[in-house]
């Protein structure tokens, strides 16, 4: 026993459960309970053999004990008594009983059902916003089943997605290789070029363990980023690149690989057989196609003629220009053109010509990285690529290409992100390192289905590529009238229209258009939702221009917050409902397989979150709340049926050889619902060989079945289906960009024209940092007044943890630099007379945030960095931390929004020493 108190304990147990506070989870853990009180979090070593993080949760999990007993929790339902909303208005929350709270809410909801689920602008009357990366779903019990039973819901109002995630990677990653997020095959790789990816802070226990093993094994990781993050610290080399110039650096690397290295060092077979490199491109940039079949043509070297790419027995030419006697091209809106005796250039040669100008010397002046460093890194990448080698993965021989390129936030969102994602994927295909052991891998899918197995999302599509479910841009099917307030189906074809698509649309727009709309705006006038649900989210802190966002949130007519504490967003809420939090409620979720960020398992199964301790106060299990809402809104049958279909999150309750379905009209207690889900999940995972009930899961924590490591790599599936990666030439994107432009222009929409420029077959460098300067000028500001780039970075202690009010996190985070203020280069500070610990004001053209200067050498002299998302003014405990936040002073700007609808977490600022308190 750890101390005398425990020695005298009458009850002492260790309860298995999970932590899924960030997208790097879930991670198994145990909680020690002494006399009914949770006292400490521990690893769950029962899962050590299967969990890539060896059964360990990260530091955030250790805050869950304090999270449970935090005296600042909302512990009973509260209703607002002050009808005025605003930062300065005390909401006057008044405690009420659950029955009254649910009656208030169901009256609102039933009123909506009476009026119709869609309002006059065609928007859902109910909106919902959840926090980072879908993780709130793993704490909301059967609420997804309630949402599914409700009907249309608007997820447009983002809480940071699009600007705080790796947004372009989500969209283009899935497009090119079913990679909602991208990772290195760390256990097998030899060389990782990590451009701003802070995986040793945000990758969770799985990434930490895998990279630590790789370091000891001797892999090399080169970290390219303006400040030396934790990952920069643990890398072999830090290359301090100028902010937002990453595409130039990567284009120069591709230049080196293509123009300065022997061609035979590339993976010619991969390029020829698994990419569109041999496809012939006509003078107008479109594929030259077979007149009859519409299939792209390649030049067959054996017969010396152009043939359809999938003709048997051919040897397609990878390089060169050829005269093509007859071909067609298919442009936007199916415009066909017949061509004779036309010049056909292979896509690969197009690439060669395209990158010829991007020399290391050119890039050096853009990126502030010496040309010789760029050359050396390109050389090291190639030296380690092991082109031609193979590796045995569980009895199957696969290509072994142990080089990977990973990208971080701010590289991967906003302008320039498309270029980076493209360049990274090109670098992989040039050496055949895409989706093979050691290389650059996708983790999972979210825009495509099924989420649990990305291989199953691969189906043959047009032109030898996998099928894509893009939002239509053709005249007949284009969604001219938005179905959600961020217009994702109207503006962003590549985001698709699956369950996750809306939240990955241009979420800034939903907020921006509430306040001001671009000139010539002729979409339906944006409306506010009648009811807005929020859970584990605080957009008033986590999005941008947060002070103005506060005012917008104050306009929402009825906000319902499943509340842990009062915070800056639910300060404007009308109803606070305290849900039983992490250690207080029951839920079964999928675990294992491959998932972001580096969860590559050789097992998959289900893991239980259980009621480790009784809920504090009047907090209620989310499943209980959901069932009550379903009952009170007359949706019980749909709700139960949704659970029966699998909306519980793991398995349908009825499957082959088993049936644990709930009765459609039953009001079941949470334990009964989860008991059925446990049984169904175990039956499904074991092909009905084993059925484990809730009691079994409570005892054992998780149930796993083995899966093959081959599932980590798409290569075998692509080969099996005879498909090619849609690389390097983006004819499809070029075409749909034109099509989208046609649609928008037909509707007199020109305010999205700048975004249309992103749809290019081979991305060109343009002055990406200059966009921020131009934006300043357009706002009437002088860029010289804002000489620093302010970046935001993440930390393991706080990353998506919703844990700013946890004292333990605050305390331990103080040991990691950056958690006391703003990181600044020591010499730049000296020039400005700023000393370590000085109070400083960081100003952009829209506002100011205050903090303390933390001086380091490991940051560029032109760059400032703020960790996390703070600057709270309502959240108890957090509001006293005196931390600055980029979000307070970063503008939302259509001009700085890219074609995917995302913006980069970066803003031009000035900094100066101030007297007095931080506030």
């Amino acid at each position: 026993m750890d101390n005398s108190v425990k020695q005298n304990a009458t009850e002492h147990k260790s309860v298995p459960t999970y932590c899924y506070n960030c997208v790097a989870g879930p991670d198994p853990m145990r909680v020690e309970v002494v006399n009914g009180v949770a006292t400490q979090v521990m690893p769950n070593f029962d899962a050590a053999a299967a969990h890539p993080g060896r059964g360990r949760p990260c530091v955030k999990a250790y805050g869950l004990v304090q999270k449970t007993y935090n005296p600042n929790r909302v512990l009973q339902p509260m209703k607002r008594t002050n009808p005025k909303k605003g930062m300065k208005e005390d909401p006057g929350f008044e405690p009420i009983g659950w029955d009254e709270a649910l009656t208030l809410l169901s009256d609102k909801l039933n009123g909506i059902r009476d009026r119709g689920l869609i309002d006059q602008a065609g928007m859902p009357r109910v909106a919902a916003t959840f926090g980072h990366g879908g993780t709130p779903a793993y704490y909301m019990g059967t609420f997804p089943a309630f949402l599914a039973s409700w009907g249309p819901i608007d997820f447009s109002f983002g809480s940071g997605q699009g600007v705080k995630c790796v947004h372009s990677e989500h969209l283009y990653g899935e497009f090119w290789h079913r990679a909602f997020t991208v990772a290195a095959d760390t256990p097998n790789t030899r060389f990782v070029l990590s451009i701003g990816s802070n995986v040793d802070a945000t990758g969770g226990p799985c990434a930490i363990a895998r990279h630590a093993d790789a370091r000891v094994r001797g892999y090399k990781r080169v970290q390219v980023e303006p400040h030396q993050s934790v990952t920069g610290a643990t890398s072999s080399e830090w290359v301090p690149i100028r902010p937002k110039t990453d595409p130039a650096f990567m284009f120069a690397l591709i230049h080196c690989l293509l123009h300065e290295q022997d061609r035979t060092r590339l993976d010619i077979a991969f390029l020829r057989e698994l990419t569109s490199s041999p496809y012939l491109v006509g003078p107008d940039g479109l594929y030259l196609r077979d007149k009859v079949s519409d299939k792209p043509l390649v030049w067959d070297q054996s017969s010396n003629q152009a043939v359809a790419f999938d003709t048997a027995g051919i040897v397609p030419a990878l390089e060169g220009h050829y005269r093509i006697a007859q071909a067609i091209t298919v442009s936007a809106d199916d415009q066909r053109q017949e061509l004779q005796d036309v010049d056909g250039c292979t896509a690969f040669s197009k690439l060669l010509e395209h990158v010829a100008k991007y020399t290391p010397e050119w890039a050096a002046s853009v990126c502030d990285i010496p040309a010789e460093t760029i050359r050396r890194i390109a050389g090291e990448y190639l030296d380690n690529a092991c082109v031609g080698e193979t590796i045995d993965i569980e009895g199957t021989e696969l290509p072994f290409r142990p080089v990977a390129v990973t990208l971080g936030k701010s590289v991967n969102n906003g302008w320039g992100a498309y270029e980076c994602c493209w360049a990274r994927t090109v670098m992989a295909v040039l050496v055949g390192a895409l989706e093979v052991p050691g290389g650059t891998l996708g983790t999972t899918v979210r825009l495509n289905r099924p989420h649990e197995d990305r291989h199953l999302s691969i189906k043959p599509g047009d032109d030898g590529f996998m099928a894509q479910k893009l939002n239509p841009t053709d005249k007949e099917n284009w969604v001219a009238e938005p179905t959600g307030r961020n217009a994702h189906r109207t503006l962003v074809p590549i985001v698709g229209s699956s369950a996750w698509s809306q939240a990955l649309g241009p979420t800034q727009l939903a907020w921006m258009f509430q306040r001001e709309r671009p000139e010539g705006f002729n979409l339906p006038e944006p409306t506010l939702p009648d009811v807005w649900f929020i859970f584990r989210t605080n957009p008033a802190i986590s999005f941008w221009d947060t002070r103005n966002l506060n005012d917008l949130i104050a306009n929402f007519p009825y906000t319902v917050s499943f509340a842990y504490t009062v915070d800056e967003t639910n300060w404007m809420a009308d109803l606070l409902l305290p849900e039983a939090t992490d250690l207080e409620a029951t839920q079964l979720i999928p675990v294992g397989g491959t998932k972001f960020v580096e969860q590559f398992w050789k097992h998959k199964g289900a893991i239980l979150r259980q009621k480790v301790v009784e809920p504090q106060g009047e907090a209620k299990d989310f499943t209980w709340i959901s069932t009550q809402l379903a009952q009170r809104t007359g949706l019980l049958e749909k709700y139960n049926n949704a659970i029966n279909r699998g909306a519980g999150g793991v398995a349908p309750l009825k499957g082959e050889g088993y049936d644990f379905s709930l009765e459609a009209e039953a009001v079941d207690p949470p334990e009964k619902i989860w008991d059925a889900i446990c049984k169904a999940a175990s039956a499904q995972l074991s092909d009905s060989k084993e059925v484990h009930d809730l009691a079994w899961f409570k005892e054992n924590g998780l149930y796993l079945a083995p899966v093959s490591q081959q599932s980590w790599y798409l290569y075998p599936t692509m080969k099996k289906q005879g498909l090619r990666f849609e690389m390097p030439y983006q004819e499809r994107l070029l075409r749909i960009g034109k099509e989208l432009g046609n649609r928008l222009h037909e509707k007199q929409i020109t305010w999205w024209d700048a975004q249309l420029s992103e749809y290019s077959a081979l991305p060109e460098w343009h002055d990406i940092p200059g966009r921020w300067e131009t934006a300043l000028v357009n706002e009437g500001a002088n860029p010289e007044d804002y000489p620093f780039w302010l970046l935001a970075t993440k930390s393991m202690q706080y990353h998506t943890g919703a844990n700013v009010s946890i004292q333990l996190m605050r305390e331990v985070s103080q040991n990691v630099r950056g958690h006391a203020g703003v990181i600044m280069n020591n010499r730049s500070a000296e020039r400005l007379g700023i000393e370590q610990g000085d109070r400083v004001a960081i100003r952009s053209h829209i506002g100011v945030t205050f903090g303390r200067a933390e001086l380091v050498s490991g940051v560029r002299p032109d760059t400032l960095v703020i960790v996390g998302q703070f600057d709270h003014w309502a959240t108890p405990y957090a509001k006293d931390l005196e931390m600055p936040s980029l979000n307070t002073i970063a503008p939302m700007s259509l001009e700085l929004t890219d074609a995917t609808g995302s913006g980069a977490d970066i803003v031009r600022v000035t900094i100066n020493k101030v007297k007095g308190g931080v506030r």
Partner: protein
Amino acid sequence: MTRYAMAIDLRRCVGCQTCTAACKQKNATPPGVQWRRVLDIESGEFPDVRRSFMPVACMHCDEPPCEEVCPTTATYKRADGLVAINYELCIGCANCVMACPYEARSIAHEANFAYGDQPMPNERAMFDPERINVATKCTFCIERIDQAEALGMTPGLDHQVTPACVNSCLSGAMVFGDLNDPESTISQLLKETKSYRQSEELLTGPGVYYIWDKA
């Protein structure tokens, strides 16, 4: 004779403070008292900068200066290498705090809780008044090690009898075990690697080894 010691592979450590948090929770140390922490160390000037992470705590020295100066014998060196504190003897004079070259010791002079004066249920459950006004420090989770024999388990191998920090370490940087057992994981690891100990010139014989490269 057993000599429990710890090896920390600096190549692995990412400075995440999971060990710091795990220690705080397992040992219920009050806010501000950290029996162990991970230092975030920078050297060099831009652009040639190195940043490293180094976990520090009580080094459980062979010749502990804290034990030598302790006037009450509250601090004592055990036969198995652990440096322990008998809270009932300690008078809180802080001489040991001054003697420790590793900033490992703390004295909390009053009960202090995460959210002010009132303890949360978990703090109440773990609160030990014996620890107020006396010197405290990392114990290598002595209670666990003392259970090992009765349970037939081996510290460092069996998690139940292994220090909480070692169990918690995400990167597997921390290894615990018997230095005098040539077959132990720690002995083997130290054989395969280059390591140093903090301030060896002070002749304290620290029981924590910092690994920095392969042998």
